């Protein structure tokens, strides 16, 4: 096994009720960018957690640079030269960049020395970053750079990156890729996790494809078409959502100069947002995470109140009305965070069906609940959206993220909204279920509803949206027809590359 950086042989990990990884083997060469490809729930995360020492495999072994490698904890993995950038950052908003980096080190040097080091590394790899900036003020892309630099300071031999581009604008993706290519040229290997096929074709030398915890194939991404890879990943041909052509009708939802202050300290306030969505229209709103998506959804749901005339539904001014009143009038929403926001974790699916459906589905009479009807409603959602669960009495937290997402979206779709606003509707959902959700949104539009889809998945927006705009620091870009927009244009609408654009000039 000489020459290989990391050899993985027969890794298996089972959780109660599900086998996350079954007998997975592959090799990573020095200086190779290796893609780990698979749908959500295919077992990618578990696999890299085993490599990073967060999860102990049930069986199988790993060899790193010719030596048996069994990391008991992430610290051991880092000591052996394995670093990882997580999809969700572990940074403290109130501290500056250098302090955050210092927190992750065993023996941090003085902050001023560390800051100098950070500046060095950031210049060397083209990752513009000011070590003295407070993390709470950074964009998602800049935060990711903090995490990457934190890893690079350890001089890793293998860098694991979990879905790194999900929070980046197209321009920022280019900066990241340039950095990764530079690292590769210096001999660092990269294990790159993604389900975005074009990215993998652009960047990776080798790809290992996982499906349902098993390795189902390998390919050289450059020589394989995206369609072929998708088929390997999904196991069958994908159903593309279709829609009948519709003529946009009257304006159903209008925002007129919507400005609200974010309730959170590091939240993003909305600044003068105006838009119109017509019956039968799907408006796609892109934007890097943390640019006002959550606040916009809250302002539309009625969780954040505005001046009456700022939100207009079918001609009625509803800006100052609460969630219950808006729901009654036909404006339904589904927030991004499933557990704790869209659903109550410890409550059953029946109770969670009541959470938004009580009024519109007539699940109560004079305030008294009709449990039988609520249960039937929950069962109807479970059936139509293929929610995998033992039954409506199951607690929401017992469902996998994707299944709960199907339930949460299904709950709103089945209430026949006049206007539906969804944030990240297919986040963490496997490809076939995502197609079902998108199809349901399109069907609603055809039925005369106005739909607003807020998403960070540009492919998703291009697939469903008639019109397209982007949120950037709480402001809305101009709204343009989605057809014919280039990635370049979309990137600029999203605010281009946050920070310095000239890093790779």
């Amino acid at each position, binding site marked *: 096994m000489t020459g290989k950086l990391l050899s993985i042989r027969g890794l298996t990990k089972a959780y109660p009720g599900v086998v996350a990884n079954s007998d997975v083997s592959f090799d990573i060469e020095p200086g190779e960018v290796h893609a780990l490809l698979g749908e959500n729930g295919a077992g990618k995360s578990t696999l890299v957690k085993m490599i990073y020492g967060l999860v102990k495999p049930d069986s199988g072994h790993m060899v790193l640079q010719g030596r048996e490698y069994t990391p008991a904890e992430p610290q051991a993995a880092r000591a052996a030269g394995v670093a990882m950038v997580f999809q969700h950052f572990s940074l403290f908003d109130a501290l500056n960049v250098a302090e955050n980096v210092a927190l992750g080190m065993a023996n941090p040097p003085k902050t001023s020395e560390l800051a100098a080091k950070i500046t060095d590394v950031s210049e060397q790899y083209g990752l513009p970053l000011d070590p003295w900036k407070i993390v709470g003020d950074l964009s998602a892309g800049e935060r990711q750079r903090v995490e990457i630099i934190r890893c690079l300071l350890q001089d890793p031999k293998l860098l694991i990156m979990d879905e790194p581009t999900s929070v980046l604008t197209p321009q920022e993706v280019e900066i990241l890729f340039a950095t990764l290519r530079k690292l590769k040229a210096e001999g660092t290997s990269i294990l790159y996790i993604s389900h975005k096929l074009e990215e993998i074709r652009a960047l990776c030398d080798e790809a290992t494809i996982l499906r349902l915890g098993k390795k189902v194939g390998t390919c050289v991404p450059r020589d394989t078409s995206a369609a072929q890879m998708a088929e390997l990943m999904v196991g069958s041909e994908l159903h593309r959502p279709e829609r009948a052509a519709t003529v946009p009708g009257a304006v159903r939802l209008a925002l007129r100069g919507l400005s609200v202050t974010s309730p959170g300290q590091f939240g993003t306030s909305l600044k003068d947002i105006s838009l119109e969505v017509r019956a039968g229209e799907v408006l796609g709103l892109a934007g890097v995470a943390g640019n006002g998506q959550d606040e916009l959804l809250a302002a539309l749901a009625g969780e954040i109140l505005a001046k009456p005339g700022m939100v207009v539904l079918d001609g009625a001014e509803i800006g100052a009305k609460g969630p219950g009143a808006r*729901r009654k009038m036909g404006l339904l929403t589904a927030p991004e965070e499933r557990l*704790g926001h869209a659903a109550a974790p410890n409550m059953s699916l029946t109770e969670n069906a*009541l959470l938004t459906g009580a009024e519109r589905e007539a699940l109560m009479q004079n305030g008294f609940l009709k449990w039988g009807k609520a249960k039937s409603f929950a069962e109807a959602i479970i059936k139509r959206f293929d929610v995998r669960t033992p039954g409506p009495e199951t607690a929401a937290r017992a469902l996998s993220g994707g299944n709960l997402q199907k339930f949460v979206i299904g709950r709103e779709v089945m209430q026949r909204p006049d206007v539906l606003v969804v944030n990240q509707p297919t986040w963490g959902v496997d490809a076939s279920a995502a197609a079902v959700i998108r199809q349901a949104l399109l069907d609603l539009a055809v039925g005369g509803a106005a739909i607003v889809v807020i998403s960070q998945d540009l492919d998703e927006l291009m697939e469903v949206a008639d019109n397209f705009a982007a949120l950037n620091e709480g402001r809305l870009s101009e709204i343009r027809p989605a057809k014919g927009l280039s990635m370049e244009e979309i990137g600029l609408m999203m605010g281009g590359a946050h920070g310095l654009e000239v890093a790779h000039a």
Partner: protein
Amino acid sequence: MLTLEKRPQPSKALSYITPVLAVIVTMIAGGLLFAALGKDPVVAIRTIFWEPLFGEFASYYRPQLLVKGGPLILIALGLSLGFRAGIWNIGAEGQYIIGAICGAGVALAFYPLDAWYIFPLMVIAGALGGWAWAMIPAILKVKFGTNEILVSLMLVYVAEQLLASMALGLMKNPEGYGFPGSRNLQQYPAAFNGELIAGTGMHWGVAAAFIAAIFSYILLNRHILGFQIRLTGEAPRAAKFSGVKPARLVLICMGVAGALAGMAGMFEVAGPSGQITLSFNVGYGFTAIIVAFLGRLHPVGIILAGLLMALTYIGGDVAQSRLQLPAAAIQMVQGMLLFFLLAVDVLTNYRIKMTKREVA
């Protein structure tokens, strides 16, 4: 090595078993405590938990079960609504005192008139008094975001001062030879909350407790308001998304808890206690917090827990007089009950797993 693993779903069975388990562990720890005090632990535990029910003088003690359990259950039912929603009214003792003062005030104002409407008026006055006292922390929380735990707790001490001033001043019995304390309402038939069925301890307050339990059950299980209360406690953000108005919920939960505590105080002053005295309040308002949690914040559980706590009160008295156990030791046993319940509660949400320590 022992590790805790989160259960995918809270265990239903264990949520019923843990209160029983907590009682057993309390008996063991209490026994050790009594042994350390130089008493025979078996005799002490037997005296507290067994004698009042099945001992020689049980016929005297048993009615006391309802007399002591009634106010505990009534107060705990009110508190449980707020606790479910994450609203922490710790000041039921104060609301209880104010309810008693208002109830007694109505009675004393009409004294010695004999009319059917006096007792109902006293009930209303007691409920309103407790409600008003609870509205102070509630409104401060809603308007200024103050912490209801601190404000409601501090108002207990204010209420105690008010009680003392009433017993020594305004409500002092003019025929009491200068001793502190009001007229004894037990000797004022129009106001007296006597036994409904002789020899059972059953008075109007106990009846009110059972009625309140039924209403509480219906509210929590069948009504949208109860659903909103539970939802707010489980997931505040989801509740807000659902359209629950948090301020409204604070006012309702605090108000109901205050009214029930006030009623409990009124029934007590008109019945078993009989008069406003310096030592009128005996901590029911605080013990009811234990009762609420021991009963799993569930109406039926609260009834059982209230009776159990009443038993420790009665048994504690017996143990004090017969075994010379200090009163503080009895209170410690009551406290342990809550302590161990919260400790074993972990098991409903987590399971214990034995894992071998991994070698790096």
